[in-house]
């Protein structure tokens, strides 16, 4: 027969939970590596924006309205989607883990509720606009590119879109399940 005090005693004296110097070194390494990754992430993002802006300036010289419309829809939907992801990341990072657990839980629930709105509205809309932009460009591709390269672009884009959809579906499923569990009363 174990009473609670016995359980407590056993709990506090369990082995294998003590700190080691090696453990601290590994931890410190992880901390520094996260800070480096954040720095690298910012550099990559800046370079991407510069490349995208240069590309837009380059294509703005084209006289074809169809081309400009198609490419603007594709790049525009991508930029909006990326901007929303970055905003979400900022929102997630701003959740304070040192608040009391009830407040934290409510902040996390609000975050995933906000993500639900993105998943059900913004993401399908962005995907649709991207696909429309691509379809607008197809006749131009067909007229200017070789038949083989045209087919390559067509099929690789469909495959890319499908892979992207599966990836987004998995992310949505995981986040909605988290939201569901957070909303369980306990």
């Amino acid at each position, binding site marked *: 027969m174990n009473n609670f005090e016995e*359980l407590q005693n056993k709990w*506090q004296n369990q082995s294998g939970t*003590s700190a080691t110097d090696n453990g601290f070194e590994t*931890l*410190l390494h992880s901390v520094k590596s996260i800070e480096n990754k954040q720095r690298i992430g910012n550099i990559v993002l800046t370079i991407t924006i510069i490349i995208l802006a240069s590309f837009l300036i380059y294509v703005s010289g084209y006289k074809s309205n169809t081309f400009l419309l198609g490419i603007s829809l594709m790049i525009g939907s991508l930029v909006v989607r990326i901007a929303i992801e970055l905003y979400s990341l900022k929102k997630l990072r701003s959740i304070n*883990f*040192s608040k*009391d657990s009830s*407040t934290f839980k409510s902040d996390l629930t609000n975050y995933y509720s906000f993500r639900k709105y993105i998943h059900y509205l913004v993401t399908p809309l962005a995907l649709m606009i991207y696909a429309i932009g691509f379809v607008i460009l197809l006749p131009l591709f067909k007229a200017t590119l070789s038949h083989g390269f045209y087919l390559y672009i067509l099929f690789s884009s469909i495959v890319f879109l499908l892979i992207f959809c599966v990836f987004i579906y998995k992310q949505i499923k995981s986040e909605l399940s988290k939201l569901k*569990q957070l909303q369980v009363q306990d």
Partner: protein
Amino acid sequence: MVSKENKYKNIYQENYPKVMRLCMGYTVGDEALAKDLAQETFIKVWQNLDGFRNESGIGTWIYRICVNTCLAEIRKQRKKDRNLSIDTFQVSDSNEDPTEKEDMLVQLYGCINKLSSTNKAIILLELEGLPQLEISEIMGIKHEAIRTRIHRIKQQLTKCVNNE
């Protein structure tokens, strides 16, 4: 003047065992997963250390981060954990030692895992021997409500461990 790194090392050494025990409670005794969660907790401690204003004790502050980290991260593993708990229970009941851990601890992990996430956090903090007022501060639940909950969970847990 103590550097941030030295201060951090002291915090780590003083608080690692209790953080690790709490994480072990959340992961049903899965040591590898618990180590990951403990590491995640201390990474957040580092990231927020400059903002710590001594409004609560450092211990309370770390417990909050740890409980919230487990709450946020463990959801991915929960289904797996439940299965693990049931398996562990079956082996434990048949008096076969599945790991080197003592039977009672294994049984305890399994019983804790049957609780809801909030009740799990509350009882893990109670097992650590924290005053109920501090538990109520960590959980953001009124002291009176915590007292009642703890009483109920303690009974539940003791019964479960004793297979009643």
